[in-house]
Every structure is written in structure tokens, then in C-alpha cells.
């Protein structure tokens, strides 16, 4: 069986990363209009949680549809620490991440015995339970939600009156998450995760403790998802179960990765950019929310991608690049080799 993630062009990959980073650093010079800058922040946030989801959902192949639970726990931990105990949000963000990683043990314990569809359904149930808990928890604001204080401003308290600092922070978090993901991909963990995804039985037979490494993938993924949740709380200054714990949020995290390319480093980033732009265009261009047109287009897009491009944007680009390089070397064009490899994954 072919590996699902091959890296045929390391030089090209590095240069693409460098160009993307340079573009992200230069963007605030070109885009000064607050609403456009906000759109860029939203894309970075979507990318960050997509990359986090991808660690367990893509690399380790455990399709979770309940990641909003971690996001919400991150948002609620830092917010409650700040509001009830005056704890600095930087520390709160870390605490939220740790809290989610700890919670991921219970999450994994209840779901990892299951495979495939069963796992996905169990994760929905767990996230739904967490949402029911927060909706009824009076101390945590229940269904009304929590308004964050904005008395302390500046980098020390992660609270800003303008958009630009949030942009830098979101970019920083994304780069950090990507670096961790990259380190994982290169280490033995990356190989273990892929083995768990592609050949669980073979992995077990050569002595890989599958349950343990699934749990590792989930904990790392949960930590960074929660960090994203804390950032959301600090940016929006208001959280409620609907905004940080909803099933649609869980779906979005997975969707971003699938759109870009599951189990690839850059996939979720590309997916996040594409998805954010589409969301914004349908929302702004078609008479706003409420009519349902934006939802219809969004959903139609999901279906088209799931049915016709199962390996996502990155996968499609990769197979195109492979075909091109084969043709340049005078080999017969092996159409759809990469797509076949992706398809044969369970």
C-alpha cells in the first residue's frame, strides 16, 4: 500500500511555506480596513483549529466530530479564570489547553474502542453532552453566556481595542500549531499515527501501542483546539454554548481539513482560506443570513468536495504536480495515482 502522505517536492514545499509566511506578514500593510482585517483573522483562526483537528482527524485518521467540546472548554476555562479569579488570559489559555488535554483522556477512553462511523457518532454524543452541561451550568453563565471584562487592555492582558494585534496573535498561534504539527510529522509519532490510520492491525502486530498513540494524538489536538477557543473568547469578548460548543463548529474544524486535504500540513490552512472566503462571499453577496441561500451554497460545496475531490485541494494539486513531473520526465502519465492512494485509506 502506498503511503497516504508522500512529500515528493521538499524544496517546493519549503518555498511555498516561505512565500505564504511572507504574504501573511505583509498582509496588514496592504489591508488596513478593519472588516477585511477581521476576515483575515477569521481565516487564521479557522486554519489554526483545522490544523489542530488534523493531528488526530487527519494524521491518525480518527475522524472526530466532537472537537467543539475542546474548543469550548478552552474558551470557558480562560474566561472563567479571568472573570472569577482575575487570572491573566495568557495563563488561562495555557490552563484551557491543559484542561482540554486532560478531558481528552475521558473523551478518548469512551470513544477510541470504536472504529470508523461508530467513533464519529460517539464523538458527536460526547460533544453534545458537554454542550448540555454548559447550557445548564449556572456558574458558567448557562445558556445566557459570559461577557468578558475589557478594563485591562494591551498585550499583558491579551485584550485589544484594535484588530491588528489580534491578527499578529492569531498568526503566531497558527505558526506555533503548524510547527508542532511539523515536528510531529517528522518524528516517530508521525509514522505511528499514519500506521494507526492506514494499517492498524499491522501496527499492532509490530508492537505499536495503538490505544496509547491515538490518545497522544487526541491530547495534542485537544490542547491546541482549546488554545484556539481561548483566543476566540479574548477576541469576541463574549461566549455562550451556541458559539463555542456547537456541532456546526465541530464540523467546520473537520471540514477545513477535508476541504484542503486530510493528513497534510498545509491542507487545513488552504481549506480555511477557501472556506472563509466562500462563507463571506455568500453571506455578503446574497442578502445576508436568514434566507438560507448561504447555507445552501455552503452545503452544496461540502457535498461536491466530498464526492468529487475526496483528497482535497492539496491532494488534487499533488496529483496534478505528480502527473506533470512524470510527463516532463517522459514517463506515461499515471492519472490519479495519488487519488487512488487516498481512496484506499479506510
Amino acid at each position, binding site marked *: 500500500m502506498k503511503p497516504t502522505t508522500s512529500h515528493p517536492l521538499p524544496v517546493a514545499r519549503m518555498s511555498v511555506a516561505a512565500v505564504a509566511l511572507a504574504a501573511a506578514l505583509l498582509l496588514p500593510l496592504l489591508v488596513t480596513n478593519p472588516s477585511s482585517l477581521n476576515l483575515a483573522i477569521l481565516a487564521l483562526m479557522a486554519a489554526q483549529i483545522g490544523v489542530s483537528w488534523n493531528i488526530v482527524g487527519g494524521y491518525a485518521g480518527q*475522524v472526530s*466530530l466532537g472537537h467543539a467540546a475542546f474548543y469550548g472548554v478552552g474558551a470557558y476555562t480562560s474566561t472563567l479564570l479571568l472573570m472569577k479569579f482575575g487570572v491573566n488570559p495568557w495563563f488561562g489559555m495555557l490552563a484551557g489547553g491543559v484542561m482540554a488535554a486532560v478531558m481528552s483522556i475521558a473523551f478518548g477512553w*469512551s470513544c477510541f*474502542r*470504536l472504529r*470508523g*462511523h*461508530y467513533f*464519529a*457518532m*460517539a464523538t*458527536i*454524543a*460526547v460533544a*453534545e*453532552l458537554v454542550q*448540555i*452541561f454548559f*447550557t*445548564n451550568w449556572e456558574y458558567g453563565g448557562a445558556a445566557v453566556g459570559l461577557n468578558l471584562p475589557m478594563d485591562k487592555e494591551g498585550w499583558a492582558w491579551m485584550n485589544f481595542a484594535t484588530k491588528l494585534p489580534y491578527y499578529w496573535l492569531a498568526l503566531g498561534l497558527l505558526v506555533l500549531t503548524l510547527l508542532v504539527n511539523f515536528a510531529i510529522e517528522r518524528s516517530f509519532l508521525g509514522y505511528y499515527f499514519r500506521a494507526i490510520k492506514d494499517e492498524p492491525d499491522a501496527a499492532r502486530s509490530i508492537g505499536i501501542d495503538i490505544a496509547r498513540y491515538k490518545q497522544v494524538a487526541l491530547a495534542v489536538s485537544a490542547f491546541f483546539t482549546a488554545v484556539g477557543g481561548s483566543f476566540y473568547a479574548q477576541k469576541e469578548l463574549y461566549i455562550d454554548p451556541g458559539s463555542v460548543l456547537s456541532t456546526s463548529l465541530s*464540523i467546520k474544524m*473537520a*471540514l477545513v481539513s*477535508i476541504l484542503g486535504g*486530510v493528513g497534510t500540513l498545509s491542507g487545513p490552512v488552504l481549506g480555511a482560506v477557501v472556506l472563509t472566503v466562500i462563507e463571506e462571499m455568500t453571506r455578503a453577496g446574497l442578502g445576508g443570513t*436568514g*434566507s*438560507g*441561500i*448561504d*447555507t*445552501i451554497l*455552503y*452545503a*452544496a*460545496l*461540502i*457535498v461536491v*468536495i*466530498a*464526492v*468529487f475531490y*475526496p483528497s482535497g485541494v492539496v491532494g488534487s494539486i499533488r496529483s496534478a504536480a505528480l502527473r506533470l513531473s512524470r510527463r516532463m520526465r517522459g514517463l506515461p502519465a499515471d492519472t490519479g495515482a495519488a487519488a487512488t492512494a*487516498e*481512496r484506499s*485509506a*479506510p
Partner: protein
Amino acid sequence: MTFDILLQTLASGVLIGLIYALVAIGLTMIFGVMDIVNFAHGEFLMIGMYSSFWMFALFHLDPMLSLPLTALMLFAFGVLLYKLLIVRIVNAPMVSQIFTTFGLMILLRGLAQFFWKPDFRSIENSFVAGSFKLGQVQLGKPQLVAGIGAIVVTGLIYFFLTRTKLGAALEATAADKEAARLMGIDSHRMFALAWGIGAACAGVAGVLLSTFFPIFPEVGATFILIAFVVVNLGGFGSVTGAFWAGILVGVIEVMGGLLLGPEYKLAIVLVLFLGVLMWRPQGLLGKA
């Protein structure tokens, strides 16, 4: 808690459970035959409800009369959906399958919201409106009729699967696709049939529900979660399992709501679901 309240709760639990069973039977059939979880199943129910509503509002056709029409319509819809879309993902990776039916779910909700507005609607004064007392137990006529309707439809499906040639072919495909193919059974035809019957079941459940439950675009959301639970408890692919599990979930839900408060109704069902997934992944009623 008095005995009367207990009896009353039990009765309403069983009645709503019969509806859950009918929704779940469609879901479990599709899963059993082709290993695809249909996340859009709750939307079939929603379409059934709207079909019932519009036939009542536009043509003054009572839900009980429009029921066969809706069943036929949903059957055609299910088959069409299979032929146009699902057929392309039969051998696709699981992620694609999940997101295809998930996207379909959001798509159908969006379409309902666009064409029929996000308002809550209801059917007033149908044939079955009102309630009556049976001893100390107060029963709503719509609920009772819905429960009986669900039993009848489940019985018909059971008869179809166990007593007809086509039903046997469907069961054979569910048991072993390859062996069934060697016997000359066209699996694509069976898959299409499963989607048709599955959608029709959910549609009929929607019609039965429409006489006492609000009708709105997102109505499928709760029912799909409960249907997952029922399908799991009953054992994936098992029609009789889903029937008993549906009743069980209905009773547990209503009982739990009585004991812990209605806001935790769903939570109890979900805890049960996770418990069973962990300790009996083959389902409470499934075979090991």
C-alpha cells in the same frame, strides 16, 4: 411518585418511542445494507412533516390520507438520491461518506429554510385531534394514532423482509454483498431499494409526528441523534432490534425527564448510548 404518574409516563414514553423506532428502522436498514451512516436521515423526517403540512394547508388533505402519498414521494426521493449522489461514494473513504450525507443534511435544511421559512408551523384540527382517558391515563389521540401507525409500518417492513423474495434479496445483500452478487442479486438495485425504504420510513414517521409536533427546518436534528442511539442499541442493521430499542429509548427519555428535569432528557439518552457503545459495541439487543 404515584403509580398513575408512572403509568402515564410509561405510556407517553412507549408512544414516542414507536416513532423513534420507525425513524431508526430506515437508518439501520441503509447502514445494514451498505455500511453508510445517513446523517441526513432526520431531514427525510422533516420533509415528511412538511409534505403532510402542505397537503393539509393547500388541499385540505388530512395527514392520515396524505400519508401514502408522502411515503411514495419519499421512496422516490430516496431512490433518486441514491442514483444521483450516493452511488458515487459507495466505495469512497469514510470521511467522504460522512461529509456527503452531512452536507446533504445541511443542504436540505437550508432548502427548507429558503422555501418554507424558518417559522414553526403546526397542523390544527386534523382527524385525530383531541385526547381521551383510559383509566387514570390521559392519552393524546394524535400520539396514539402515531404509535399504532408506527407499529403497522414496522410490521409491513418486517413482513416484506421475511416473507417476500425482494426482501430476502435485501437481507442477503446486507449479510454478504459478494455472495449475494454471485447469486445474481444486483447490489446497486438493493442499495437503491434500501434508500427508498429508509427515506419512506422516516417520511411516514414525519407525517405521524406532524399532527402533534411543531414543524420547522431543523426538526430533524434531535431525531437523528436519538435515531443513532436507537440504531446502536438495537444492533446496527437490525430492524427488530431497532423496534425494541426505540421503545426503550422513548421510555428512558420520558422517565429521565420526569426524574431529572426535561433539560437533561437528551443527556440521559446520550449517556446510555456511550455506555452501550463501550461495553456492548454490538448493541444491547445485537448478537455478539
